């Protein structure tokens, strides 16, 4: 099932990237897709971590959420750079809990923290994450754990 979805995605990407539909290029595409799948299976790389199809349904809502967060924090940092509110920056180093159970969820969380300007994840341990925040406000916002709840974090059922 995983192999099938993966193959379907590869075919779709090939078609969209090439844009040609003559038999030669379609044949080459098919050969490439089959070779890729064969190699991925042989190297045992194809699993729920490299291709998290069980999380795909959660991604659209998460993307909307994270884009909004990125936008808001960008405006905050832009204000800090231009010193619009006249206050100096108050850099903080805080440790926040890492509630995700799967490795993939942890990676998504750490990357989301880094993606929102104003906070950068510096170090991960098994249950804590060290974050450098540009301002007290950004640190406080992150400590509420709102973002942690929005992260897609679910093991595969199959």
């Amino acid at each position, binding site marked *: 099932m995983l192999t099938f979805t993966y193959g379907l995605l590869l075919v779709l990407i090939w078609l969209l990237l090439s844009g040609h539909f003559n038999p030669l290029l379609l044949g080459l595409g098919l050969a490439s897709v089959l070779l890729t799948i064969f190699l991925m299976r042989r190297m045992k790389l194809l699993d729920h971590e490299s291709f998290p199809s069980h999380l795909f349904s959660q991604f659209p809502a998460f993307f909307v959420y994270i884009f909004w967060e990125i936008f808001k924090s960008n405006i905050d940092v832009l204000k800090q750079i*231009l010193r619009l509110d006249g206050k100096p920056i108050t850099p903080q180093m805080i440790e926040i809990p890492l509630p995700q159970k799967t490795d993939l969820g942890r990676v998504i969380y750490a990357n989301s923290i*880094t993606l929102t*300007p104003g906070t950068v994840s510096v170090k991960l341990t098994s249950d804590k994450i060290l974050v450098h925040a540009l301002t007290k406000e950004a640190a406080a916002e992150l400590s509420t754990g709102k973002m942690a709840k929005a992260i897609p974090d679910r093991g595969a059922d199959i």
Partner: protein
Amino acid sequence: MIIDALSWIFLVAGGLVGIIGAIGIHRFPDFYSRQHATGITDTLCAMLILLGLGLQAGLSLAAFKIGLIFLFLFFTSPTATHALANAAMHGGLKPKLDNNGDEGKS
């Protein structure tokens, strides 16, 4: 026409945001806080410019490719930033923090 104007607004806004990010890199005091300024050029600046380019391309294969560029940027830039910050921490670079004065100054 409207799409053209909209795409130019996005492109110019993206350029401005990039310039502000560059100013931030010079203004902030230490390595860790400068990373936040680069975060701006990584995210909002890239998003606005790619959105503007996407509007210029219209509904075509080129737009799809721009989307892919955005997706790869979206995955790789935080990873690179984290790797840099982690390496700096590991190498013993102390951040200048607000609550304990001038820690980190040599």
